[in-house]
C-alpha cells in the first residue's frame, strides 16, 4: 500500500527532476521582463584603501549607461549601510574606505549586460592604499591595523563568548592523568554553488509594489528585512513580493543579504524599470560570504585507561570586515558548543573570540548547521590524538566512551539536550561493513613493507533543525516554520511551505509526508514554495531545518485535515466519529472494513455534502515551533593510501553509516549523503581560500580553488541505522548536512593514521600532496 501512496519510506522518484533534467528549470537569470535594465558592480582591487575620488564621467558617457550609483548617492537615502544578522552593520557601498578586495565600490545601470560591464571598466577610482591585516590572531594584537574605523571600539575584537564551567573544567584538567592538546585550523572555504547569486527587482511606480525574483534560501525573512531596511522609503511589507524561483544550490551562501540585492532594488525604484543583477563566478567566489575560518586550540583530559573527562576549547573566529555571519542562533559562535560530540564529558568549557580582518565577511554555515562542522572536526580529531597518546585503537576508544543509548534524552555539559542516539550501533555497523579488523591486519603488513595506508573514523553527532524559539530568532522573529494544505474537491492537494528547496527535493518529500498522513497518492499532491504572496510565512531552508521544522508543520497540518475529514467521514458513513478509525489510508467503521470512505470521497463531500454546522472546505495551516533541536549522528570509516613519491592521498574506501531518524525518501537521503560526503572530501583534501599579506585573494576562481570533480570522488558506500527523534511528529531528524559535517575528520584521521608511526599527530586540512610530501621528506620516507 505504501508504495502506491508513495508515503514515508518510499523511494519515490523526484517530481522536480522532470524539469531539471530537461533543462526547463526556471532560475533568476531566466526571468526576462519588458524594459529590463542590467546592473553590474565595480569592485575594489585593494584590500584596504581610502577612496579619494570616484570619477564616473567616462562611464556615464557610454551610450546605454543610464546611471552610476556610488556610496555618496546612497547617503541621502540612508542606504549606504545595512544591518547584519549579528548586530553589526555592513556597507552597501563605501563612502570613503574599502575594507576588502572585491568589495562593491559603485554600480552601473545600463540597457544591456555588456554595456553595464563596459561602464564598470570606465569608472576611475583614486585609492590611497592603507595597511592590511588578514590574520585574525595578528588583528587582535595591540597596535594592529584597525579594520573598522566606524565603530566606537577602536580595535578588531568583535565579541567574546563562552559557555560551560570554567573553574570545574580547569580543575578537571589539573587533576587529569592524561591531557592532550592540539591546535587545529579549519580553513576558510566557499560554498561555490553552481548558480551564482542574483536578482531581478521590479518596482511598479503606479501602485508602489516591489516584486523581486531572488536567489534566496529564506524569501519570507528577506521580505521582512526589505520592509525594515527600506520602510522609510515607502516600501511596506504588504507591497513587497519576494519570489525565490528554482535555485541552483544554496548551502548557506544564499542566506545573507548582499549589497548587490540592495543595489538592484534601489536601481529599480530609481529608474522605474525592472533591473537584473547576476554575479559572475569570480564575484561570487571573491565577495560573497565565506565559511569556517576558525583557529582552534582544543584540549582533552582523560584517565590513563582512556575515559574522557573534560574538554577545553579556545578559538579565534575570523569574521572578515563585517560580522555578517548567517547565524540566527542566540550564540555568536552558533551551535559550536555541540563540540562535546558523542561523548559524555563531565566538565567542559568553550570560549570564542571574533575578530575583524580585511577580508570579505565570513561565517556562512556552509552545509553545517551553524559551526557544527568546526565542532565535529575538532572533537573527532582530538579523540584520535588521545588514542595516539595512550596507544589505544581509535574505534575501541570511541566505543569505551560513547554516551550510552540508555542515557537519552541526554543533557551535555554545555547545555544541549540530545534527543536520541545509539552511537555504538552505528560504529559497529560501519566496522562490520568495512571489515575493520581485516584492514588493521592489512595495514600492519603494508607498514612492514614501507607502504602507507591509514584508517580513519569519525563518529559525529550533529545538531540541526533551527529552531526552538528559546535558542533562535531572526530580528526577533521566532524560527518556526509553516505548512498550508488545501485538499481540492477532486481529492488532489496543494501544499505550500515557508521553507525553500535549493535542490533538496522538497516537492517530493513533503508530498510524501502528506501522502502518508492523508492517504492521497503522492502524484496528486503539488508542493509550492518560495513565493511570499502565496506561501505561509516561514524562515527558510538551511541548517538542515526543513524536515525537522517544516516537516513537523506538514505532518501536523495534515493531521488537522484528517481530524476534520474524520467528522465528514462519520457523517457520510452515518456513524459516530468515535466509531471511525483511520486504517490502511481510509476511514473505516471500527470492525467493519467494508464500510469505509477514502480521503478523495471525503474531500468531495467537504465541498458538496458537508455536515450541517461545519465549515465547507478541507484546508489547514500549521506553524510549528519545535520543542527541541534534532541530533542526527553517524559513524564514518575511511581508508586511504598515500603515494610516497607524490604525497597524494587516495581515498580507497569510505563507508558512511548515517542515522537521521525516520527516513521519508531513502533515495533522496542517499543522494543527500553522496553530495554531503563529496562536500566533506573537498575541504579535507582540496579547498581553501587564502590571502597574501596585501589581502589579495588566492583562489578567487575555479583555476585556483579546487573543487573535487568526478575524477577525485571515490565510490561512497552508505548504510543506515534508524533511531527516531522522540519529539518530532514523524520521528525524522534531517540529513542535509550530516555528511559534510562528519566526513572531513574521517579523512584527516585516516591520513594521520597512515603517518602516525612516523610521529605525525596532526595535519591541518586541506591535506594537499605538497603538505604530505613535505612531511615524508622530513621523516626521510619520501620516494
Amino acid at each position, binding site marked *: 500500500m505504501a508504495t502506491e501512496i508513495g508515503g514515508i519510506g518510499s523511494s519515490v522518484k523526484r517530481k522536480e527532476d522532470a524539469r531539471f533534467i530537461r533543462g526547463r528549470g526556471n532560475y533568476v537569470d531566466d526571468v526576462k521582463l519588458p524594459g529590463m535594465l542590467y546592473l553590474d558592480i565595480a569592485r575594489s*582591487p585593494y584590500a584596504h584603501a581610502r577612496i579619494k575620488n570616484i570619477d564616473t564621467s567616462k562611464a556615464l558617457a557610454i551610450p546605454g549607461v543610464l546611471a552610476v550609483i556610488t556610496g555618496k548617492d546612497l547617503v541621502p537615502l540612508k542606504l549606504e549601510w545595512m544591518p547584519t544578522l549579528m548586530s553589526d552593520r555592513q556597507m552597501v557601498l563605501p563612502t570613503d574606505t574599502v575594507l576588502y578586495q572585491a568589495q562593491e565600490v559603485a554600480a552601473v545601470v545600463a540597457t544591456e549586460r555588456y554595456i553595464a560591464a563596459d561602464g564598470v571598466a570606465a569608472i576611475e*577610482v583614486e585609492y590611497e592604499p592603507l595597511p592590511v591585516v588578514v590574520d585574525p590572531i595578528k588583528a587582535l594584537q595591540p597596535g594592529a591595523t584597525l579594520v573598522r574605523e566606524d565603530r566606537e571600539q577602536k580595535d578588531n575584537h568583535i565579541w567574546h563568548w563562552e559557555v560551560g564551567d570554567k573553574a570545574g573544567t580547569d580543575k578537571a584538567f589539573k587533576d587529569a592523568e592524561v591531557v592532550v592538546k592540539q591546535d587545529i585550523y579549519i580553513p576558510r572555504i566557499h560554498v561555490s554553488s553552481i548558480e551564482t547569486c542574483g536578482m531581478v527587482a521590479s518596482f511598479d511606480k503606479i501602485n508602489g509594489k516591489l516584486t523581486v525574483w531572488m536567489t534566496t534560501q529564506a524569501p519570507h525573512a528577506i521580505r521582512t528585512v526589505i520592509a525594515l531596511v527600506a520602510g522609510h522609503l515607502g516600501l511596506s511589507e504588504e507591497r513587497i513580493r519576494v519570489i525565490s524561483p528554482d535555485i541552483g544550490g544554496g548551502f548557506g551562501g544564499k542566506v545573507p543579504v548582499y549589497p548587490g540585492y540592495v543595489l538592484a532594488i534601489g536601481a529599480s525604484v530609481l529608474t522605474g524599470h525592472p533591473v537584473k543583477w547576476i554575479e559572475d563566478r569570480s564575484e561570487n567566489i571573491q565577495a560573497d560570504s565565506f565559511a569556517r575560518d576558525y583557529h582552534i586550540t582544543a584540549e582533552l583530559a582523560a584517565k590513563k585507561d582512556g575515559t574522557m573527562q573534560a574538554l577545553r576549547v579556545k578559538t579565534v573566529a575570523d569574521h572578515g570586515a563585517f560580522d555578517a555571519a548567517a547565524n540566527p542562533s542566540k550564540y555568536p559562535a552558533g551551535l559550536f558548543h555541540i563540540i562535546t560530540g558523542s561523548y559524555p564529558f563531565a566538565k567542559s568549557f568553550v570560549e570564542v573570540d571574533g575578530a575583524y580582518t580585511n577580508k570579505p565577511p565570513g561565517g556562512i554555515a556552509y552545509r553545517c548547521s551553524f559551526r557544527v562542522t568546526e565542532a565535529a572536526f575538532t572533537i573527532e580529531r582530538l579523540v584520535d590524538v588521545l588514542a595516539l597518546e595512550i596507544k589505544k585503537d581509535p574505534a575501541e576508544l570511541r566505543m569505551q566512551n560513547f554516551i550510552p543509548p540508555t542515557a537519552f534524552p541526554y543533557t551535555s555539559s554545555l547545555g544541549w539536550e540530545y534527543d536520541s542516539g545509539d552511537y555504538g550501533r552505528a560504529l559497529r555497523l560501519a566496522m562490520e561493513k568495512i571489515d575493520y579488523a581485516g584492514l588493521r591486519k592489512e595495514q600492519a603488513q603494508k607498514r612492514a613493507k614501507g607502504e602507507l595506508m591509514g584508517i580513519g573514523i569519525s563518529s559525529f553527532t550533529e545538531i540541526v533543525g533551527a529552531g526552538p524559539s528559546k535558542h533562535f530568532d531572526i530580528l526577533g522573529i521566532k524560527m518556526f516554520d509553516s505548512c498550508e494544505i488545501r485538499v481540492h474537491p477532486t481529492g488532489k492537494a496543494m501544499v505550500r511551505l515557508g521553507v525553500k528547496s535549493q535542490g533538496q527535493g522538497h516537492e517530493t518529500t513533503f508530498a510524501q509526508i502528506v501522502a502518508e498522513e492523508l492517504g492521497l497518492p503522492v502524484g496528486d499532491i503539488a508542493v509550492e514554495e518560495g513565493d511570499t504572496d502565496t506561501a505561509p510565512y516561514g524562515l527558510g531552508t538551511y541548517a538542515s531545518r526543513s524536515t525537522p521544522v517544516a516537516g513537523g508543520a506538514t505532518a501536523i497540518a495534515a493531521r488537522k485535515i484528517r481530524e476534520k475529514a474524520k467528522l465528514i467521514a462519520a457523517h457520510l458513513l452515518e456513524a459516530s466519529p468515535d466509531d471511525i478509525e483511520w486504517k490502511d489510508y481510509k476511514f473505516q467503521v471500527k470492525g467493519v472494513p467494508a464500510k469505509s470512505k477514502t480521503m478523495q470521497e471525503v474531500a468531495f463531500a467537504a465541498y458538496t455534502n458537508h455536515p450541517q454546522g461545519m465549515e465547507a472546505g478541507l484546508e489547514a495551516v500549521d506553524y510549528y515551533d519545535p520543542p527541541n533541536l534534532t541530533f542526527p549522528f553517524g559513524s564514518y570509516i575511511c581508508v586511504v593510501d598515500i603515494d610516497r613519491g607524490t604525497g597524494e592521498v587516495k581515498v580507497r574506501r569510505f563507508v558512511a553509516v548515517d542515522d537521521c531518524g525516520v527516513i521519508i525518501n531513502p533515495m533522496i537521503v542517499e543522494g543527500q549523503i553522496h553530495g554531503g560526503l563529496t562536500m566533506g572530501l573537498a575541504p579535507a583534501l582540496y579547498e581553501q581560500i587564502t590571502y597574501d599579506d596585501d589581502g589579495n585573494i588566492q583562489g*578567487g576562481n575555479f583555476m585556483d580553488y579546487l573543487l573535487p570533480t568526478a575524477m577525485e570522488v571515490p565510490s561512497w558506500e552508505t548504510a543506515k541505522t534508524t533511531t527516531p527523534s522522540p519529539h518530532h511528529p514523524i520521528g525524522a531528524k534531517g540529513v542535509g548536512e550530516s555528511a559534510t559535517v562528519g566526513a572531513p575528520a574521517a579523512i584527516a584521521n585516516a591520513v594521520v593514521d597512515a603517518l602516525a608511526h612516523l610521529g605525525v599527530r596532526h595535519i591541518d586540512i586541506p591535506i594537499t600532496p605538497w603538505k604530505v610530501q613535505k612531511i615524508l621528506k622530513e621523516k626521510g620516507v619520501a620516494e
Partner: protein
Amino acid sequence: MRFEGTLDIAAPRDRVWSFLTDPKQVTTCAPDVQSLDVTDPRHFKVVVRAGVGPIKGTFSMNVEFTELVEPGHAIVLARGQAPGSAVELRSTMDLAALDGTRTTMKWASDVTVSGMIQQVGARLMQGAADKITQQVFSCIKAKLEAPVTA
C-alpha cells in the same frame, strides 16, 4: 615583489641621468605607452598597457620623483590602476661613473600588484616582470648607446 639588478651602459653618467629623469625621454622605453602628461619636472601621468599573458590592462599611472640627487641618485614612486587591478611601484636608482664614457646603474624595485592580475596571474608574474624589465633596459641601453644626433 622585489626586483633588483645592475646595468652597464656605454654612455657618460650625466647623459644617463638626464635621460632617466626626463619623463618625456624615459617613457619612450616604457611598455606600450598610450599617453603622457607631464605636470611638472617631478610629476607626470602615463597610461601604459601591460599585463600577464592574456590578462592585460590599461594602467593609468601617477608617477613622482620623490628624490632627485644629481648626479646619481633617484627614487621614483608610481601608483596606478586598471579596471579590477592596481599596481604600486617604488624604484631606487644609483648611477656610478665607471669612466667618462661608461656608467653602471644599480637599481631596485618593490612592486605590489593587487586585484585581478595578481589573483589570476600570480604564478606568471615573475616571468612577466622579468620580460618587461629586460625590454625596458635593452631599450634604455640602445637609446643611450646610440650615437648622439645633434
